[in-house]
């Protein structure tokens, strides 16, 4: 066996090919050392083989962990997934002894909730499944395993409630997964793009989350969840726009306050998209929309600014976007310094230097802060882009242009489908059997 394996693999020092003999019998053992738990291999193979308390041949036959691996073609995969291969008496057995390096039951970081489960999904599939199963203790929970990526061979799991799931969506997901041809998949976001199939999309149509409570709630609603090895994020599909505007805490806190928070989120998403465009169109086209005091003070503070309003907007937005981008990529210790320098000093200085007006500073900070109110970061990211087309329209057409632009966005949202489900549907649950008028044809 070892000779054949040597031929299968490239020259690698971490490939262990041993031949052992204890007088009674001779076995060949093959495994990739870094992929396997050395202790487990010692406990299951080397020690019992050497001690001879029980005939090793007997052990191989009786203990279920040893599985017969006759098919030579599968050896390579088995070894790469952390199995050890044992040949005894001409029969090849495989033993699963994989060592998985992952973060130990991590805390939620991306979507944190003050009161609510603090544990996030793990990068290890079994631990993630443990979390989900302990939150969703139902016999109907179905778990399917698939593999994606011709090189990376990433295991993924499709989790759903077999009674509640929408069969058309499930079929759709299964066919999508089997038809994906790609070499490597490393992150949930990558899988998300492959599942959607569209390369250029403006809005996320599947929800990526790290929270087991969000996942269990989604499963209970009949949605399909895809877990992925070595990624602590799961994909929930189908998703609607409103799922993205919804934080898990909305279920945990006082009713009226959470309603108010939801209202606040929708207001801020509207502000962050339209405010720069409205600033341009009101300042340059319809100043009578301001109250007269405000009009005079804006005119006064703008009188030092040599550029037209849209250049001013571009200067400030460029500054704030670079600032946000820099503070995400920077290590935490430097991050706060960057925000202080950028936010306070640059903003103040830019205004004193007469590069931007003081109102523009307020507009920019409202835009940035309102953007962070969106609870799911993928939508927050997508929304950051939406203001720019509106700004362009506002430069040429003023307020009516902005209104048309917002209308176009809403139309686009209504046109979107997430796995065949309307993305922007507010009212009414869709029964799996009934179709939606104008629904896109599923391929």
């Amino acid at each position: 066996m070892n000779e054949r394996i040597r031929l299968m693999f490239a020259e690698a020092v971490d490939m262990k090919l041993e031949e052992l003999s204890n007088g009674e019998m001779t076995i060949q053992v093959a495994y990739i050392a870094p992929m396997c738990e050395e202790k487990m291999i010692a406990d299951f193979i080397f020690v019992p083989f050497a001690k001879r308390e029980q005939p090793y041949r007997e052990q191989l036959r009786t203990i279920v962990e040893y599985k017969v691996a006759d098919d030579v073609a599968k050896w390579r995969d088995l070894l790469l997934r952390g199995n050890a291969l044992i040949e005894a008496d001409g029969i090849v057995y495989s033993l699963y002894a994989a060592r998985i390096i992952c973060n130990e039951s991590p805390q939620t970081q991306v979507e944190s909730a003050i009161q609510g489960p603090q544990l996030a999904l793990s990068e290890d599939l079994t631990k993630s499944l443990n979390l989900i199963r302990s939150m969703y203790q139902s016999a109907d929970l179905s778990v399917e395993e698939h593999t994606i990526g011709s090189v990376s061979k990433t295991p993924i799991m499709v989790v759903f409630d077999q009674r509640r799931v929408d069969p058309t969506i499930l079929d759709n997901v299964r066919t999508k997964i089997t038809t994906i041809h790609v070499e490597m998949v490393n992150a949930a976001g990558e899988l998300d793009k492959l599942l959607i199939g569209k390369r250029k999309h403006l809005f996320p149509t599947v929800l990526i989350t790290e929270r087991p409570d969000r996942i269990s709630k989604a499963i209970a609603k009949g949605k399909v969840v895809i877990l992925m090895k070595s990624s602590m994020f799961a994909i929930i599909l189908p998703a609607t726009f409103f799922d993205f505007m919804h934080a898990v805490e909305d279920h945990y806190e006082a009713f009226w306050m959470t309603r108010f928070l939801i209202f606040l989120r929708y207001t801020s998403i509207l502000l962050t998209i339209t405010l720069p465009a409205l600033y341009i169109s009101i300042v340059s086209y319809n100043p009578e929309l301001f109250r007269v005091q405000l009009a005079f003070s804006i005119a006064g503070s703008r009188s030092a600014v040599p550029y037209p309003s849209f250049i001013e907007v571009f200067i400030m937005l460029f500054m704030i976007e670079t600032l946000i981008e820099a503070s995400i990529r920077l290590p935490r210790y430097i991050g706060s310094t960057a925000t202080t320098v950028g936010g306070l000093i640059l903003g103040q200085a830019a205004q004193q230097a007469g590069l931007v007006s003081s109102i523009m500073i307020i507009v920019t900070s409202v835009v940035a802060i309102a953007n962070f109110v969106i609870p799911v970061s993928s939508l927050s990211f997508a929304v950051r882009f939406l203001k720019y087309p509106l700004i362009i329209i506002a430069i040429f057409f003023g307020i009516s242009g902005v209104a048309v632009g917002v209308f176009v966005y809403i139309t686009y949202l209504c046109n979107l489908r997430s796995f065949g489900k309307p993305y922007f549907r507010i009212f009414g649950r869709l029964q799996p059997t009934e179709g939606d008028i104008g629904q896109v044809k599923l391929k």
Partner: protein
Amino acid sequence: MRNVFCCVILLVTVCFLGGCGFKDIDKRFFVVATGIDKTDNEQKPYRITLQLALPSPKIEPGASKAQLETIDASSIAEGVRMLKSHVDKELDFGHCKIFLVGEELARSDYSGMLQWMRRRRDIQSVADIAVAKPDAQALLGVKPVSERYPGNTLFLSFGADGTDSPYTYVQPLSEFSKRAFEKGLDPLLPIIIPDSKESYIINRTALLNKNKIIMVLSPEETQLFAQLAESYPKSSVRGTYEDTQVVAAVSDIRSKYRMTTQGAKTVIAFKVKMSVVLEDAPENLYKQEWASIEKKLSEDYSRQAEELLRKIQQAGVDPFGFGLRYRANHHSNNPNEAYEKWLPIYPGADFKVNAKVNIEGTGLIQ
């Protein structure tokens, strides 16, 4: 490739459709008040005075700065066009909430001015119109010391944010033009008089017909008119009781009227119900019966109101809209038929005012 190219060309050309509307706020000159006077010159009968605000980032009391521009022109539109060449920025009437009509112009013919205001896109319908005495140019020269930004004092006097005076009648452009064109309803305008170099008095009202001022109401009559026509609270009633003057603040007032035909005569009967709190009253009133005072106040009020109504009737104007009510209640096939019937009726109509004053309290706690 060809399609993409076409799309780009289309997008670029579409971008130019907006035209030249783009003008930054600091490149605009905000007109905060416009005055229109009549000159003696036959060729250039209009004198236009614009109060232009000089914006400043700091707004504090007394820091208001404004620039006055005056021009004589043959028409208002032409004058404004000419004035553009006197200033360095684009004139914007978007914040012009006050239009002052010189008394002389208002006494001759205001219809040309109204035409111009209604046609211009950037003049808002909520702008207030007033008659300036002696003329608009002099009035715009007044600089109130407390003013935070140009035009503020006049905005506040008329708007609901500042004072609520029963003597100040507010007439927005939309209302004025409605009254100027509706048959059976005549316009009225407040009159602004400069008090000194630093303040204004607005307590008289001019009654106009479709062309010019017919009569002027005194401050007391202005208040009475507001009470009768608009049930205006925050006002007062006045009367005498046993030779002492009684003044009461109105807390609630309801005024309505019915028009009935009795024989050949049309009777317009007002019913005015009000609740008042005494402000000026005899000393030992608290323990007395109030019914007699209420009766006396009601009688005094009825008499004053009837006098005012007859005075307005004799002047031949109809600011209450009796004619409009008549037209609404009388069917006619021809649009003008009802109105033509009304015209001879109005001068002969009889007025009756039935006031009912209810004293809520003396304003004192014993």
